[in-house]
């Protein structure tokens, strides 16, 4: 069904805008990394479990990312669109791990 022009909308009607209309061209093209940060007490097995649970990664990939966090202090756990990265980060925080989102280099 074709979308009605904005001027034909009635008060209170929900307006959905494509993300591309909200973000700048630069933002829609950019990719963002979800970074997992090391700390001295979190169980390695727990980090692996979170990676499997949140991103549905297999055991090997989860363990590889976990080991990078462990040995280097941080690792990119996921790369993609900004909004998705931020929501993944919210999920990871909900499971108690420190993570942030930053623009991919």
């Amino acid at each position, binding site marked *: 069904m074709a979308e009605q022009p904005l001027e034909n909308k009635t008060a209170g009607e929900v307006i959905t805008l494509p993300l591309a209309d909200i973000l700048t061209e630069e933002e829609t093209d950019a990719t*963002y990394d979800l970074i997992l*940060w*090391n*700390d*001295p*007490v*979190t*169980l390695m*097995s*727990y980090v692996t*479990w979170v990676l499997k*649970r949140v991103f549905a990664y297999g055991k090997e990939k989860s363990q590889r990312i976990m080991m990078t966090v*462990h*040995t*280097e*202090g*941080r690792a990119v756990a996921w790369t993609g669109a*900004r*909004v998705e*990265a*931020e*929501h993944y*980060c*919210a*999920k990871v*925080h*909900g*499971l*108690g*791990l*420190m*993570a*942030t*989102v*930053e*623009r991919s280099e």
Partner: protein
Amino acid sequence: MSFWRRPQLVAAMPDGNIEIKLSPAVRDLLKNLVDEHLGEGEAGNGAAKLFGPINPGVEFEDPLVLLHRETEISGVIEIFTSTLSASAISAEEGEAWLAVSQLLRTALIASAGIAYGLPHAEAPRLDDDGLIDALGLLQSELLGALGEIES
């Protein structure tokens, strides 16, 4: 010959649930820890404030993302507190217990001023922190039980 065995805290049950073998005193302690470290408090936001900004590169954080984080955190805390006195919990509830144990450990290391992002070999150690160790033990056993149920 006798062998010393550490008492088990949780165990996978044949029906796919997890038996919780914690004493009432330990359950009270966990409840107090949650109230103290993950409660709303005066500052609001509860445990969400442990993590700081999700995307430090933007001036304003997306309120929907912040709401998502708060919902995730309050969801697991609610499941945990509502099942804290149970003798057995489901695997899904076990995952919430796992998450809350981690949130408590995160709160405890935050109050000890531990910095994130150092490689393990260079990171400062928290020597003999009984609470952090005990919560780690609980997590380890929950992971074991969940793995057993999954397989």
